């Protein structure tokens, strides 16, 4: 009889524990793709980014090559000037760091905020001023900038003076998910065609909103200044679907604007 019990228990235990299993999704790191290249006969410049260049905040990784021996140039100081060429005029756009040297990852990094897409209106070029070995070389690289499906850059005229044009770029979340997401925006204004400075000293209010059901989400952290015109907070999404990230931007107690980013995720 003991044998029976034993067998029975074992069967029963297999029965019970058989059904529980856990699964873990692997995290894939985003890789860089080449978006544009150019050269001046002596040196070549390759622009890489995680996606195609789009209207909004883009992190560019630059490789510079000496074309005579195909070696990488790692000791340069590079300055960039993005330029939109239109029929009657040209203008540049905000760049967080106009001049840079090689970073620890072996790349030259630039954060550029394109303010309009390439197209019938005009085209974009980035001029690279590469200073190395005691001389400065210039390389002009044409780039294509698309309008992303979801708006990542919002511009508006300040509520304060009704003239200054502000640009707010959504940096994070890049691929929003249900739960807690980092939220980062950067803010610029257009001082002139060639001057797009970052705006510091702003304060934000934040309300994520699910428009199809008219509700928000709890425990969000409104973005606060981290320097260089960047502001960081947390945004929570309680479900998948269409969300709005509603921001209210203030300078002191005065309303500057109320940009709203929309995002859809499954």
């Amino acid at each position, binding site marked *: 009889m003991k044998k029976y019990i034993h067998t029975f228990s074992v069967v029963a235990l297999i029965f019970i524990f058989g059904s529980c299993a856990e699964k873990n999704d692997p995290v894939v790191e985003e890789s860089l793709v080449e978006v544009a290249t150019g050269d001046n006969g002596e040196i070549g410049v390759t622009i890489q980014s995680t996606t195609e260049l789009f209207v909004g905040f883009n992190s560019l990784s630059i490789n510079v090559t000496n074309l005579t021996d195909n070696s990488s140039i790692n000791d340069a100081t590079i300055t960039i000037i993005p330029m939109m060429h239109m029929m009657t005029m040209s203008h540049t756009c905000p760049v967080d760091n106009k001049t840079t040297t090689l970073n620890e990852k072996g790349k030259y990094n630039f954060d550029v905020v394109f303010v309009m897409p390439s197209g019938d209106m005009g085209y974009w070029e980035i001029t690279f001023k590469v200073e190395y070995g005691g001389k400065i070389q210039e390389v002009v690289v044409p780039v294509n900038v698309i309008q992303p499906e979801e708006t990542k850059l919002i511009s508006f005229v300040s509520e304060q003076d009704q003239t200054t044009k502000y640009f707010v770029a959504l940096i994070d979340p890049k691929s929003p998910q249900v*739960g807690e997401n980092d939220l980062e925006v950067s803010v610029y204004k257009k001082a002139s065609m060639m001057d797009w400075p970052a705006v510091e000293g702003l304060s934000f209010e934040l309300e994520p909103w699910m428009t199809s*059901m008219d509700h928000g989400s709890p425990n969000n952290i409104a973005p606060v200044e981290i320097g260089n015109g960047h502001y960081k907070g947390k945004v*929570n999404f*309680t479900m998948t*679907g269409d969300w709005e990230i509603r921001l209210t931007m203030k300078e002191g107690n005065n309303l500057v604007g109320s940009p709203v980013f929309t995002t859809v995720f499954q």
Partner: protein
Amino acid sequence: MVNNYLMMLTQIILKMKHRITLFLLLGLYGFVFSQDQATYEAWQDSIKNPDYIMKNILYLDEMEVVENQYKSSNPLLTQVRKDKLMGTDELLHCLPGVNMMRRGNFASEPILRGLSSERYVVSIDGMRLFGACTDKMDPASSYIEPNNLANLDINLGNDDAMDGASTGGCVSFNLKTPKFNANKAVFVRIGMKYNSVSRGFDQLADLNINKKNLAVRSSFVHRKAQNYIAGGGSEIKYSQFEKYNYSFAMSYRLPQSQMLSFSFLGDDANDVGYPALPMDVSYAKAKMFSLSYYRMNLGKLKEVEIKAYHNIVDHAMDDTKRDAVDVPMHMDMPGNTHTSGLFAQTYLFDSLKTKIEYYNTFAHAEMTMYPDVGSPMFMLTYPDVVRNSTSISLDYNRAFLKQNLLKMGFRYEKAATYISSEFGEQQLNVFNMSGKKPKKMNLLNANISISRNIKKSFKLKLTTSYGQRLPTTSEQFGFYLYNRQNGYDYIGNPDIKKEGAWQNQLMAVWHKKKLRTNIAVFHYQFQDYIMGVLVPNYSNMTIGAKGVMFYENTKKASLMGGEWSLMGDITKTTHLMSTATYSYGYDFENDPLPLIPPLKITNSISQKWKGFIFQPELIWSNMQNNTSVKFDELNTDSFLLLNFRMHKTFKLNIGEMDVSTGVENILDKNYREHFDWGNIPRSGRNLFLNLSWRIK
């Protein structure tokens, strides 16, 4: 209804236990005397023959009741078995201290002394089964049909924790097992019932076959009801339902009083309307499997039982049948639970009942909402919640000093609950909480009671107990669950603590000649009482909801009240039965607790006449104005109901035919009970007829 009270009381008096065991017969809805006789004889037979196995763990009570009921030879007891073609809902509703919370005409949720399903344990032959609906549309009791029940034990209060840790009691369904009866190899019953109020038609079939050491039992029930008509004549839309219940069980006797049993029970409900909720149910399915081994004696161990089980509940809500105006947005809301368990129980030294139990349960529920414009929205409402529980329970009974009985119980349980879905974990991060790491809880339940015969005709029983319970899946990990009753979204609290309750109960039973009266008073003091607390700055998820409630351990809550009953033969042919029940409770801010039933009194008389039994019944319920502010509860009006039922058994050549008929709610009163969901009135005047035929 009254008959059930009566039966219950008889038993209380006879057993001196504050435990209501309602015996049901082998036939559907428990009603045929002759079958009962056969069962009883089979048991007599079993006792004499050492080769027969007795599953005394369950059957001792049952036998006792059977025996006592026979001895009392009370016409009402016979009638109750013959007369009622009841669903589980109706059956439970008959017991004092038990009310049935309705959300429609189907799957009511039992309320024990004002406590709903969070606070009591539901056990089916010792097995755990958890509903899969986040809106509690499918309480475990909805998957059981009375024709599958051998008996039903209800513990009001936690004075018996053998079946689980709770702060409010236990509802134990004990399923029928195949019967061994040397004299009758085949038993067949068929029956049917018609209810005019819902144009409902039910059918059943029961079959029991036994040969030598093998016995097989199978049953089938089909119920189908249309929308019912409330008192005054208005039709309650979306109150229809249809269900099938089917079972198969097999027992095989081995030498040395051993037995192996297999049991399967299935229940499929389809197209179930829930008028009190914004949605209906397209299907609710349960499948239960169990394997058991019994042995009478094993050294010092008596009545050893080992059981392994698995059950699956699958449930989906449905809003496609509703008027478009009432559905702001179409949603899919499926859910399922899987529960597996293993337990072993035995009597040590004859009087110490011991049980070791393990179970694992998994709950998944999701919601996808489809807006007219925009993308579908998805969330996990039960984020793949896993719970493991291991426990040991002891129960000790001892007689001392002549006719005094001491009972002590103890239970210790270790449980761990976590969420196994990454998506669910992300959802929780919104609240800066996590559920990935198991939340561990140790539960302690202990009780002691003393019964004392003060006089021959007067007995007293005092019980003191302490109980703890685990939070439910909804309370711990539910995600924006909409409560239609008060209009708030509820969010579970992963860090919630266990709830505890001290309980004191005093019961007095007095009987003289043919009159018996019983009075019980109780006081429950809850600690860390779990309830939803409003979070003012959270925005609701459900369209039209009033706000968001978050489950918290509130400091305390109290519940008190009592049950009283009087029954007896006034003359040789006339029997009287009266009951009264009352409870009152308040929370940590002295606000009344929600869903507390008001004072309710029932009176009935049974009159025998020329083979007929006539039974008029009067039910009165007081209004309830002690309503919970936090729950946004409505007041409920007082109501008076009048019922009339009659019964007769016809002996035919081809078997026995039981015929019951009657009118319920004769006055066609439009009423609702206080704890009913929504503002939906209950059934109006109902004419019923039921026939049950036991084939010779």
